[in-house]
């Protein structure tokens, strides 16, 4: 199972099974939104803030 540290609070985060690159996950410790940038090796970055033209 891939693990990575939260860039905000450094808490260890374990990817759930089926996690995909591009997915947004939430740090279980500090609650910040993180984007999964790579599964192997495991990597995350702070998710971009919502933009004005975002939507469905």
């Amino acid at each position, binding site marked *: 199972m891939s693990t990575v540290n939260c860039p905000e609070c450094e808490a260890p985060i374990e990817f759930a099974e089926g996690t*995909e*690159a*591009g*997915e*947004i996950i939430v740090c279980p410790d500090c609650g910040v939104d993180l984007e999964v940038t790579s599964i192997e090796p495991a990597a995350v970055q702070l*998710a971009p803030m919502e933009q004005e*033209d*975002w*939507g*469905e």
Partner: protein
Amino acid sequence: MDCLLPSAFSWMILMQKRLKVGVLYSRVRVEEKWIFGAMEKRGIDYERLDDRAISFDLENPDPWKQYDAVLERSISYNSGLYALRLLNAFGVPTVNTASVAEICGDKLMTSAVLARDGVPQPRNVTAFSTEAALDAIEAFGYPVVLKPVVGSWGRLLAKINDRDAAEAVLEHKSTLGSVQHSVFYIQEFIEKPGRDLRIIMIGDKVLTGMYRSSEHWITNTARGGSGELCPITPEIEDICLRASKAVGGGLLGVDLVEHPEKGLVVNEINHTMEFHTMQPLSGIDIAGEIVEYVVKTATQNNKE
């Protein structure tokens, strides 16, 4: 015995081995996961196109022409819209088309085509200056709702209850907003029964629908509204088919409101609809339906 026979759809896939589909996306939300899963389940040759990683060389459109169809699922309206415009200019079929995205992504454009085709909608007026907007609001009577023409998830909607609020909101919008916020889209406030309806359209098929309820006047589930399955009545079917036709058809999330005098009216139409609440609620494989529609579009292109 039936289960042993390949469905017409499976045959179509077998016959069209060369089909290549692109999926343009910004983030892998649960909807994209389901769509990717549905592509893989059907053995479709597809490529994930992250809208932050791609670029278009107008002198070399060939890499894009390999796709028989591209499904657009961008979160950013601008990125999605311009990608669709380029792809359509290259002759690549897209779901939805650039024209549909142009209309659905802009509330004023949507209202214009609904009005053109006589599809019921809330009354609305547009103005381009704070003075003209204030005059229009006063003529309307309070309360009214001010909406940005581009935007989603219920963001920056303002319910205006009196002249003081109107003056304040208009001044804020003209001072703080981007140029787009100087297009003042003013809509009647509808005393709806604490809910609105989200209906999923797949081409000419009204697939499923739900009521979105909230004690807040904004009933969007992105704002915490909850969902309940809504039976598709002939009235719902009729207005959704007309709305879909007005905007150009495709994969659409039609939002309806129960107007106390007019009955059902179309509030807005989403061209890259989310369905994370709807799919489990309805038990319908919406992602699968989306994929089959995209494959149909790709197949038509593949034959041409």
